[in-house]
Structure formats: C-alpha cells, structure tokens
C-alpha cells in the first residue's frame, strides 16, 4: 500500500511541477495565496499534495509558511501579525481554542459556507462560531488515543488497559520485564508533560476521566479544586520517574513520538497523526502497534475522556486576495480535501460521512471506533473563559507541571490554582 502511495506522490509531484509550468505561463490571472500553519510530522510535504488539485483547477498558487509545532508559539506569532494587520498572510490554520480570542480579525464565513456546514459535526462548527459569526472552517479534528505495542502486550500476556490503574500496572510490569531482559531503554508510558498547551490537554483528560470536571465548566464556574482532580494528578505524578522518563516533563508531541517510534515505549498518549507516521517505512514500531481510547479513571463520573483538538482555516480580514483565499478555505474544508488528508496524513475528518468511506477506513482502520470517542470528547474551557483562556490554560499547566515535578502536592497546587482563577475571573469572564 505504501508503494502505491509513494507512486501517487511521485505522480502528483510531477503533476505539481507541470502545473507550476502552466501556472507561470498563465501567471497573469493567477494569484499567490499564503497559508500559515504549524508543521508537525510530514505536514509540509503533504500540504503540497493536498492543494495541488485546487491549484490546477484555479490557476492560483499556494505558498505554505511553516511555523513551529507548538501551538503556544504559533498563537503568539499570529496574534502579532493580526494586531499589525499584516496583509502578507491570507489564510491562517487555527487551533480549535483560538476562535474567541482572534474572532475580530477574521472574515465571517457564515454566508460562504452556508451550504456545507451541515456536513460537519455540529459541535465543531459551534466551537468556531463567535457571536453568531463563523470565523473558521474545520479542516480536521483531533482526539488523542492510547497507542500500545501489540507485540509487547502479547509477549507479556497483558490486555489493553481500560483504566489508568491498569495502565500503570501493565506499563510497570512490561517495563520491568523488558529491562530485566536487557532492553534498558524501554519506558512504560510517554505523553506530553512540557509546560505548554499540550499539558493542559493531557491533564484535562486525567481530571475529566476521574470525574473531576473540566477546569472551568461551560457556565463559567471554576471547578478544578476537587478531590477527584487531586487523585488524578497524584496518579499522573507517580508516573514520572517510574513508568515515564523524567524528561517527559519537557516532552511535546514530537519528543514523545521520538521515544515511541524508536521502539522505546510500551504506551503513548498522542494525537492521530502519529498513527501513519508510526507505520512509516523508517519506523521501528511499524505494524507492531494499535490504538485504543484513553483509559477511564476511578470514582463517580469516571469516563474515558479525550481532549477535543482540531484545526480550522480562517480567512484574514487583512489579506490582499480575500475572494481567492475564501475559495481555498472552502476547498480545504471540503470532502475532497478532508478525504485526502485522512488517507495521507491520518487526520480525522470533520465531515461525518467520511467515517464510512471505505478508502478512508482502509488507510485508518481505527477510524471506525473514533467517531464515538470524539463525539464524547471534552472541550477545553476556551468558550466560557473567552479572552482569558490562554491565561487560564497557562495557570493550569503551570500548576500541573509543579505537581508533576514534585514541587507541590496536588491538593496545594489545585487550591492555589482555584484562587488564582478566581482572581482572574473577577466579576466574570470577559
């Protein structure tokens, strides 16, 4: 299958080259659209393939401006560009949590997308709607998974864990056994523990799965300081240095994938993009792993929780070619582009019907199970906290990072966090 993809890649890059030649001949009417996006995995290579059909159809050209992988870094840069009303960037690839904070800089897409929004998951479209304006179109969604090594689980006679306690126990057991056999580099579980937005995602999952709420509830109440959340964080803190390397406190997605893909981890929490990359030709775990929903916690309201991620495309109000940019945005959100993205990059579509598409399912057999996972996905509190979301998230990840590094007990950290959030909230989120 991979060979076929490769051949297709060659063909399409040849096609792209041909288009480029034709394009330069017809440069008179074609315009260049700049698209800015974070670059994780093979995103840059894939993007060229993704937009090739649109470029061919319209005679326009798309230039990708790659940004750092960290969403926190991207956000900082975008905010600056938008505040300066930068006309060089036509389209922004935006994180699902950014809509309320950047809404005023983007074109309202309600009218342009009127015909197609119904195909998408309603909750996602809603997350991109601010004060009745649709500020971004969903291009793919994200819900993390538990990656596990089928070969190691089988070898040590273990089941796929369904609770965090089981995961802790299984990871420790396999890690110990493997190390006893001389595999000194193996770790039980890798995840994202760096102090950044990704830790907010990880920790929100732990707390939510223990029935500890979602930091700030949709109605704006601060719920983070509760015994279940304390229990969740205590369990996570116990992983550091036992089943997870100490360095996990500096890991983002790519570092975790680095350990995983070199075959040095039994379990990994990561987004779906790691699935196809893990099955790539240079991967040490190719064909040796599968994915499952994240484990469930304990106590009242325990559930499997996956943080709702996902990316959207927004049209800048300051771009010079808004009409053309809008057309490209519609293409990127379309079934055609989302299908290609799902097959080539393993991104979860936001269009419901694609979850039953045979070609998509062939490339990503686990998608079938994913529709359900992500219908139950938990959103980060970006909607209720509005403009203060980044601060809320930063306070939260700092508190969690402190607990994980053993500087503070979970109970103390959450109590202080609650007070800090109350200060920030003041008379109400705005």
């Amino acid at each position, binding site marked *: 299958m991979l060979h076929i993809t490769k051949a297709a890649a060659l063909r399409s890059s040849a096609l792209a080259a041909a288009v480029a030649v034709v394009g330069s001949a017809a440069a008179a009417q074609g315009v260049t659209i700049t698209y800015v996006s974070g670059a994780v995995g093979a995103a840059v290579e894939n993007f060229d393939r993704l937009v090739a059909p649109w470029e061919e159809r319209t005679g326009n050209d798309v230039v990708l401006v790659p940004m750092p992988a*960290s969403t*926190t*870094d991207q*956000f*900082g840069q975008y*905010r*600056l560009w938008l*505040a300066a009303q930068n006309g060089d960037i036509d389209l922004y690839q935006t994180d699902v949590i950014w809509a309320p*904070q950047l809404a*005023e*800089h983007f074109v309202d897409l309600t009218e342009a997308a009127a015909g197609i929004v119904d195909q998408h998951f309603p909750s996602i479209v809603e997350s991109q709607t601010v004060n009745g304006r649709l500020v971004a179109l969903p291009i793919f969604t994200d819900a993390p998974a538990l990656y596990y090594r089928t070969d190691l689980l089988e070898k040590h006679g273990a089941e796929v864990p369904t609770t965090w306690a089981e995961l802790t126990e299984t990871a420790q057991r396999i890690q110990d056994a493997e190390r006893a056999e001389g595999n000194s*580099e193996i770790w039980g579980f890798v995840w994202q*523990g*760096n*102090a*950044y937005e990704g830790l907010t995602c990880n920790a929100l999952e732990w707390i939510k799965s223990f029935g500890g709420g979602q930091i700030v509830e949709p109605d704006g109440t601060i719920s983070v300081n509760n015994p279940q959340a304390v229990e969740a964080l205590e369990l996570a803190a116990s992983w550091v240095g036992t089943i997870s*390397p*100490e*360095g*996990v*406190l*500096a890991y983002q997605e790519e*570092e975790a994938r*680095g*350990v995983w893909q070199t075959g*040095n981890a039994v379990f990994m929490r990561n987004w779906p993009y790691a699935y196809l990359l893990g099955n790539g030709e240079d991967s040490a775990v190719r064909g040796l792993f599968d994915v499952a929903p994240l484990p469930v916690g304990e106590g009242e309201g325990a559930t499997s929780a996956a943080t709702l991620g996902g990316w959207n495309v927004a049209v800048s109000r300051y771009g010079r070619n808004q009409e053309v940019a809008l057309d490209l945005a519609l293409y990127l959100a379309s079934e055609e582009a989302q299908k290609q993205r799902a097959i080539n990059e393993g991104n979860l579509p936001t269009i419901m019907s694609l979850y039953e598409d045979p070609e998509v399912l062939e490339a990503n057999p686990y998608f079938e199970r994913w529709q359900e996972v992500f219908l139950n996905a938990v959103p980060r509190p970006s909607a209720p906290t509005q*403009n*203060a979301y*980044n*601060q809320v998230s*930063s306070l939260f*990840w*700092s508190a969690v*990072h*402190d607990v994980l*590094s053993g*500087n503070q007990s979970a109970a103390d950290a959450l109590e202080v966090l609650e007070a800090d959030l109350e200060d920030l909230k003041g008379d109400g989120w705005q």
Partner: protein
Amino acid sequence: MTTTATGAAAYAPDRGETGLQEQRARAAFWFLAPMLLMLFFVAAWPLLRSIWFSFTDTTLNNLYGGEWAGFQNYLTWRELPSGRIRWGGTLADPAWWNAVYNTVRFAVISVGLETLFGLLIALMLNAEFKGRGIVRAAILIPWAIPTIVSARMWGWMLNDQFGIINHMLLSVGLIDSPIAWTARADTAMIAVIVVDVWKTTPFMALLILAGLQMIPRDMYESARIDGIHPVRVFFRVTLPLLKPAIMVAVIFRLLDALRIFDLIYVLTPNSSATKTMSIVARENMIDFNRFAYGSAQSTLLFAIIFLFVTLYIWLGRVDLTGEGRR
C-alpha cells in the same frame, strides 16, 4: 546613543568663542542630525511609546484605542467586603518577582563565570604559541552561531533520551540514570547558564584580550628583571591595568544578560524556574492579551537595567579614583 549625545555636546558652542568654532559646531550638528533622528525613531520613540502604553489599558486587539489608566498596571488595590485589601498590578505579582529573581540570578552567575573563563582564555591566547591565529578564530565559533541555533543544538544535546551529554556522563559512570536537564526545575537554570557561558565566553575573552595587548611589554620586562614572582606580577600589574577593559566587557554582558530572552525561550520555554523579565513581559503582551500590563513590565525592566548600570558605573568609578589616589 550616549556617546553620540556627549559627542554633540562637546562641540556645542561656548559663548564668546570664535566664529569659526561656532561654524564647526553647526556643521557637526548637521552631520549628526540624521543619526540623531534615526536614533530617535528606533530607540527613543519605541521606548517612550511603551512607557506610555504601560499607563493605559491597551490590548493587542485594540492597539490605538487604549485609554489612560494611571498606575493600574503597576499597583492597584481594592477593598473587599470583608475589609481585606487585595493588591493587584505587576508590583504585587509573584510571577514578576520570580522573574526578577531569575534574571538577576542568571545575570550575576553567568556574567561572573564568563568573566573568569574569558580572562583565563584571554591570558592563554595572549601567550605566544604556534597556530595562535587559528585558535583565536576557532574560539570565536560559539559566539558566531546564532543564539536560536545554539539553543536548539544544546536542547538536543541535553535531551534525556537521545542527548549526547547524558550518554557521555552515563558511559563514564558519573550518573546512573539519564538526567532531564531542561525539564527539572533544579537543573533548568544550570542548563541555561551552561549554554550561555559556552556561547558568550568568547566575547568576553576577545574584549579582555584586546585589553591585554594594550599593556606595555616593558612592564613585564622590568618585573622580570626585578625577579618578581609571575603570580604577583599578574595581581599587581596585569589585573590593575586590565581593569578598565574588564569593566567595559562586564557592563556589555550585564546589559545583555539582564534582558536575556531568546536562549531561554527556546531552551526551557514556560519553566517557571527560568522565566526572566523579558519572557514574562512578552507572555503578558502577546499570549495573554495584556499589552499594557506587559508594557509596564518592560518599563520596569528598563528601569532595573538602568539602575544596575548606573550603580555599576558609580561603584566602578569610586573604586578607580580610590586606586588613583593611592
């Protein structure tokens, strides 16, 4: 900028001077005018503007619509119904004071180490040996690498799983399990200081080397004829004569170290053990959409650097005159 200003002042016409001198001063002014104008636009204007922003409620979404807010970003208080007083503003923000502490700690330790190592390297490079030119050029390499690149490079080298530093320490048996240098709160600052020392020691060495070469050779000759021990020569001849050069080098580095941003932003982003004043100011201005609050922090950063430099120059001068009299 100060040098230019004093340069202009030196040419300012004295009353009662001859017409020729007045003419020269006028000509000098016109020659300096473009430079002064440029400095005003690239240095003074942004500085004054960010001080202005710090007294408003500007946000990044509304850069031109900020309204006067007084000292709210620096210090405010509010009486709660219970009678307790709640303080707000940068000066009551623990994150800010943590950043001040981090910055000062970083600046003092890193500049101290850099001066020491820079001096040692300069003394070595000042000696005559074969291939000195090549060694002098080679030692400058860390300084020539852009900070972002060296921070990334060290980030990989310090990585706990595939970093070469852990690998080396492990294989010689100094540690028994890999250390996550940049992740742990107690080693993050050490990692940052190590990288900074590695990067800027060459700069220090170069400035001190220049100072060393200004020292007349005959002083050493006469010391040798008098049969004075080399260590004594170093402390009584080399060091006092080198002092002006070291002072200048230290002040350059201190200014740089107090506003450290790029290295920490790349190597240990968001770690509260290494967040410096510049980092928190940027975080507030851009990530948190509290542009005015961040401006207040930048203004304070400016004030603190100003204070440090004034203090340093003042203390340095007192010391110098004291020696001159002896």
